[in-house]
């Protein structure tokens, strides 16, 4: 199904806002959205949430005969799929330009950078090697699929464990996970893609564009880098002309972002490892917030409070002062998070003191206890007759 077209005024609004260095969600020009990485119960399964963009990556392996030209190297196979649940514009089995671009970029980023040691995947030279298959599925499209896909792919590869093998001559025994612990892949470095969107003929750039910003962009620059500041791939699309210092500036920004993201990935991997070792619960079910009526989980919304004080003073000055000046005592801090201003008025619920007054004013039968009960007992014995 075709996407609803963007209206002219929306386009103009977005471009005008970008000119004034404002973004729709309040981020700064170089800010990334919140990245959340969670791992599943199987090794090699990872979901990355970049704001609302969600991407799932699954890594699996298989023993296959190697390629003729490279008999001692393992095979890496990358596949990215745009699921129709990501956006109404994605149709199943439709080869769109976006799909081809994403696939190519993912392959270039991970395969050509030689981040995985393929020689270590060789079992019997010329006969059996491991084929590592990386499947990336886009679950929700809210912009910047490339970055999310690359983070998901490299996290899943780092998380993955392949079965242990024993070679005796020409015989190969593959051990199941119960027999021998599976082995992680040998990963040299973590290449991560950082996307820069250019607007208004290259005069303004934004890092991590969201879906609306992507629609009005002129061009895109994707830099794949690792934390050692090595550029793994650069791709510029959209036909805009970039100046040399712009590209250099982008690469500097990318190196900062990549080191932050690599730290995040390592922390997530470390957490997962710790939980698995301690025997705690791990997997996707644990990383989702509990759906209970009493819990209210929402992302924190940043509120602009820069001019709160002036506005408050304004309002206070403008209100008319009452003739009767009631002095309000300053707040008393009762405890953590609790403060008290003033004191309450007299208790008006009409409890003990008043009830004791009433029977005395009434001089009718108050000694007799009125028994109104449906009890079928012949005699109702009331204990504690004094309490009235």
């Amino acid at each position, binding site marked *: 199904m*075709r996407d609803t*077209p963007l*209206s*002219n005024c929306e386009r103009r609004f977005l471009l005008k806002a970008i000119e004034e260095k404002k973004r729709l969600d309040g981020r700064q020009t170089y800010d990334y959205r919140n990245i959340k990485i969670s791992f599943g119960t199987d090794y090699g399964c990872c979901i990355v949430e970049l704001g609302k963009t969600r991407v799932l990556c699954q890594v699996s392996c298989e023993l296959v005969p190697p390629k003729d030209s490279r008999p001692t190297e393992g095979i890496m196979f990358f596949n990215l799929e745009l699921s129709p649940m990501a956006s109404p514009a994605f149709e199943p089995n439709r080869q769109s330009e976006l799909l081809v671009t994403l696939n190519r970029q993912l392959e270039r980023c991970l395969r050509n950078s030689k981040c995985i040691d393929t020689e270590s995947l060789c079992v019997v030279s010329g006969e059996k090697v491991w084929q590592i298959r990386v499947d990336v599925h886009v679950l929700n499209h809210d912009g910047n699929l490339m970055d999310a896909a690359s983070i998901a792919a490299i996290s899943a590869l780092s998380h993955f464990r392949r079965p242990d093998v024993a070679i005796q001559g020409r015989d190969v025994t593959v051990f199941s996970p119960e027999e021998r612990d599976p082995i992680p892949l040998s990963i040299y470095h973590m290449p991560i893609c950082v996307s820069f969107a250019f607007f208004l003929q290259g005069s303004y750039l934004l890092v991590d564009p969201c879906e609306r910003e992507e629609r009005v962009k002129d061009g895109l620059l994707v830099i794949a880098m690792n934390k050692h500041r090595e550029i793994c791939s650069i791709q510029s699309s959209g036909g805009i002309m970039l100046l040399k210092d712009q590209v250099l500036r982008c690469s500097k920004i990318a190196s900062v972002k990549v080191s932050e993201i690599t730290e995040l990935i390592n922390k997530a991997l470390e957490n997962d490892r710790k939980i698995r070792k301690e025997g705690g619960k791990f997997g996707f079910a644990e990383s989702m917030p509990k759906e209970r009526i009493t819990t209210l989980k929402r992302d924190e919304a940043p*509120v602009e*409070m820069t*001019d709160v004080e002036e506005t408050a003073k304004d309002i206070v000055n403008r209100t008319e002062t009452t003739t009767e000046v009631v002095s309000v005592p300053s707040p008393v801090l009762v405890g953590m998070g609790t403060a008290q201003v003033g004191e309450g008025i007299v208790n008006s619920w009409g409890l003990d003191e008043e009830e004791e007054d009433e029977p005395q004013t009434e001089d009718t039968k108050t000694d007799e206890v009125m028994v109104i009960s449906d009890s079928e007992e012949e005699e109702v014995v009331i204990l504690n007759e004094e309490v009235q």
Partner: protein
Amino acid sequence: MAVEMRLPAVHKHISLAASQSNREDKHLVVPGDVITSDTGFMRGHGTYMDEDRLTASVAGEVERVNKLICVRPLKTRYNGEVGDVVVGRITEVQQKRWKVETNSRLDSVLLLSSVNLPGGELRRRSAQDELAMRDYLQEGDLISAEVQSIFSDGAVSLHTRSLKYGKLGQGVLVLVSPSLVKRQKTHFHNLPCGASMILGNNGYLWLYPTPGQQDEEAGGYYTSMEPVSLSDREVISRLRNCLLALSAHKVLLYDTSVLYCYEASLAHQIKDILKPEIMEEIILETRQRLVELEG
């Protein structure tokens, strides 16, 4: 910046007793409901045969015409009928035609021969006209048009062969479900509150300031770019919020209902109309007045 905070609270749904009366004669179904087990009926749109039983595949009202049973869904894409007024957005400029997006299953078609040339001339369209198509209507432009005919696959063919149709200038577009727009004699209304609106049958409603002079020789392609006054803007904003309130409560949209809702909302601030409690109040009043009008 003043921040407004509201705590979540449970509020009862108010439903008028009057609306209960006609609920019994309407046969409402949801997907999966069995309509009838009688095999003598022919099945129409929105139904399917599930082991000899006629079952509904969409949520809506059952319509029976002699032996034909079909289900008309409540929430659906726009299905064109000849003579409808629609508001659409140009998505493509092709050879001798424009593709217009009208919230239907297929893009609608606006043929070059179905538009009024600026200046109102009547002549054969030449090759030069074809090359200059983009000067008349570009991608992203909003137009109001009438449905001329329907193709066999359901795509709708539009025409703007009247001075009241054409490119739309300054105004506000409100999107609602097509089933909420009542079919009436005219869909162009000049409301007494000071704004005008076009109720497109496809669910696209257009609000715009009432044009000063009524004679437009330009033939629908002249869009005035003069700044709109603040009072007009306020009226249009209030109308837009009223339309959203009406559509949230599934009230049928026509000029009277919109007008009553506008009058009921005058007691509140424009931005308060979108709050759920105030919305319910306004809709209640509107519904009461509409019921009085009928009965």
